[in-house]
């Protein structure tokens, strides 16, 4: 039966093998291609939003359509792109980096992907105008129970399906990393990316049930007459906000921790140095995952909860700045006395760290209630999370795609086009998001389809829209690069970067069973060791 066997590598497998596959590399490709397609869709939605905001007044879309575009952009960018893309990385890289032949539960893995596929179909169904959901990705009641918001059930089932896929993936990735490491790979010397992925998936495992619970209550309220959130009958809409953010704040670390992992892999490889303060990097990642569960109330700083609660959570929230600071300092210190190769993945990683620095510094005031009282629900918040989630995560994912592109396809990407894409993305995104900070400080609210004709608003919206189109063009160049290079790229060889990490020691693309023999790593093996190993860079 094809259901469990792996006969051919992904590039020569037939359609039947694809459908019944349990091979982690094929499932990784499924995830990767789907998330990129949805990234494209959500990006086009964003361009629609930017076009509408060019001028005050409603020129291109009705407010209903605008609100749908915004909801779709949020849901798809967060759940498909920023979370989903890491399922592709986790599937492809965990077994290769720990010397395993597949993940711990291959069939559960396939089920996870097909559940994700079902959710993808549901999301595409919302493109039909009568199916538009307009409750934003947050789905706050009582609005989400109102008919103005669209079909609540569609929103609830999309969340349930992606949530179920995430939990299955999380169990799989955690067990694989903990139980299937080849002899000689410990939690201490394993790749930092694996710590990032594992920490992210622990968050998923503990957090997703909370989000699923929140939307389940929404469903019961709307269709079965319960009153969890109905104030007229003793419910409270703030319950939803609390339960929702208990997952959805930690979820931002699900999106960024794997990107931190990619930054570490790429920096070590192209500075040809071990990561500075490696153990503190591991602790910082797990500290972020743990602290992430203690800060959700900063999303409710103006929601009407008691003032003393806001103060308590402002202290817990600012603490997150410490481990993230440690990570940035360690990356910078890793560059010291390095031998830095400016390849495309390295540029994307350095750009990602730069964007994360700005995103992090503008996140600190949002943890301060006395600042947040003017910034909550303004464009300032939107700009902040587009620096950290929008750009740092995307640059991390792009860096990772470029970096492992030769491993996945056996071909080399086009270096010139990659670098061009990088610089255009950096110019466009900074033009876009930096001016979004300023318009936010001027008082421009988020989620506005239209805005009063205040002169400085109009000027700032123009700059942002121009930036958005430059950014989109840069991203388009990278997508083109991957498609053309996968078809026509030069042969890359097994280890083009001269890395000491395990995934580079097998042929590209990896053979169906990855390793002919499970590798046994010598005492003192280290994926970032360039002192003893001294591989040659080509």
């Amino acid at each position, binding site marked *: 039966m094809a259901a469990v066997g792996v006969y051919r590598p992904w590039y020569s497998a037939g359609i039947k093998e694809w459908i019944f596959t349990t091979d982690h590399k094929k499932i990784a490709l499924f995830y990767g291609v789907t998330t990129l397609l949805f990234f494209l869709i959500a990006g086009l939605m964003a361009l629609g939003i930017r076009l509408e905001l060019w001028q005050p007044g409603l020129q291109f879309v009705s407010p209903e359509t605008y609100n749908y575009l915004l909801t779709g952009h949020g849901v798809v960018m967060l759940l498909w792109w920023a979370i989903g893309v890491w399922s592709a990385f986790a599937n492809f890289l965990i077994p290769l980096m720990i010397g395993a032949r597949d993940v711990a539960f291959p069939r559960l893995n396939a089920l996870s992907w097909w559940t994700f596929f079902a959710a993808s179909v549901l999301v595409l169904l919302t493109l039909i105008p009568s199916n538009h959901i*307009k409750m934003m990705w947050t789905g706050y009641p009582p*609005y989400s129970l109102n008919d103005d918001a669209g079909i609540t059930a569609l929103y609830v089932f999309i969340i349930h399906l992606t949530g179920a896929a995430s939990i299955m993936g999380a169990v799989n990735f955690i067990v694989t990393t903990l139980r299937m490491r080849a002899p000689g790979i410990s939690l201490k010397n394993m790749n930092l990316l694996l710590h990032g992925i594992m920490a992210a998936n622990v968050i998923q495992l503990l957090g997703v049930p909370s989000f699923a619970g929140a939307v389940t209550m929404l469903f019961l309220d709307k269709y079965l007459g319960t009153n969890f959130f109905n104030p007229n009958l003793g419910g*409270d809409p703030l319950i939803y906000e609390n339960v929702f953010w208990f997952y959805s704040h930690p979820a931002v670390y699900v999106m960024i921790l794997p990107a931190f992992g990619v930054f570490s892999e790429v920096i070590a490889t192209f500075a040809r140095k*071990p990561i500075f303060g490696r153990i503190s990097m591991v602790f910082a990642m797990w500290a972020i995952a743990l602290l992430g569960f203690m800060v959700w109330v900063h999303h409710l700083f103006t929601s009407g909860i008691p003032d003393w609660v806001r103060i308590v959570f402002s*202290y817990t929230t600012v603490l997150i700045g410490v481990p993230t600071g440690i990570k940035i300092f360690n990356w*910078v210190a890793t560059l*010291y006395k390095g031998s830095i190769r400016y390849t495309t993945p390295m540029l994307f990683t350095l750009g990602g760290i730069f964007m994360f620095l700005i995103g992090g510094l503008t996140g600190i005031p949002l943890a301060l209630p006395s*600042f947040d009282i003017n910034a*909550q629900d303004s464009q300032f918040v939107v700009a902040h999370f587009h620096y950290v989630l929008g750009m740092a995560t995307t640059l991390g994912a792009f860096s990772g795609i470029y970096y492992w592109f030769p491993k996945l396809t056996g071909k080399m990407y086009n270096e010139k086009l990659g670098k061009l894409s990088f610089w255009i993305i950096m110019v466009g995104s900074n033009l876009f998001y930096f001016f979004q900070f300023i318009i936010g400080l001027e008082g421009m609210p988020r989620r506005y389809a239209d805005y009063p004709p205040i002169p400085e608003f109009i000027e700032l919206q123009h700059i942002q829209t121009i930036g958005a189109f430059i950014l989109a063009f840069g991203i388009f160049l990278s997508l083109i690069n991957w498609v053309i290079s996968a078809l026509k790229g030069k042969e890359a060889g097994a280890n083009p970067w001269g890395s000491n990490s395990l995934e580079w020691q097998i042929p590209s693309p990896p053979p169906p069973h990855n390793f002919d023999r499970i590798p046994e790593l010598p005492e003192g093996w280290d994926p970032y*060791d360039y002192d003893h190993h001294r591989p040659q860079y080509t």
Partner: protein
Amino acid sequence: MDALPLAYPANLWDRIYDIWLFIAVVIYLVVAIPMLYFMIKYRYKPGKNENGAHIEGNNALEVTWTVIPLLIVIYLATQSFVFYRQQRNAPKDAMEIKVTGFMWGWEVDYPTGKKVFAFFSPDYKIPEEQKIVIPVGKPIKVLLTSKDVIHSFYVRPAKVMEDAVPGRITHLWFQINKPGEYWAFCREYCGTQHSHMVAIIKAVPQDEFDKWVKAGVSPSTSKIELASNVKEVQ
């Protein structure tokens, strides 16, 4: 120009903003300058630095960049706490008004029983009778609630906002020191006309306000008067 800021408690927000911006720029330079310097100095030069130096870490350095940021963020949270008390607690002599959000607009109740309906406006032109009139130079405490979904009342010049939640009464306060017209926005997403759910706050001198707030209301029929009658009966 007089020395008074345009509005309270915007002056406090401006101060926390200045403090944060200063710290953020310093941290930015402390990170970005060495980063750029290393990126240029330690770039790969064939034959000269084939591999990087084998440096695994430095405990003193790592402790430094753990402890100093920790002290900075604790200072920031404490400074914010000090300002926040004043931003949240209205002065004792504040005038109370009640603002109730609905889809889509605001219903404003004054202590005299005067009522203003500020409906949403697709072209942002607000008729005179829908403007929320307040006395200049006097603190206003706003009691907020909602009839349907969650809204949020944002007073742009005062740089404060708070959600209007059905089933709860929330509050904020502000004071405008210069006569004129100012924007107030709904800042919690509330549906199709969310972006049109704006209001104009019109600050006028006290005597003009007194005349306005008494015009066209008979105190005995106002809701607030009725409510206080009920209290007396009990």
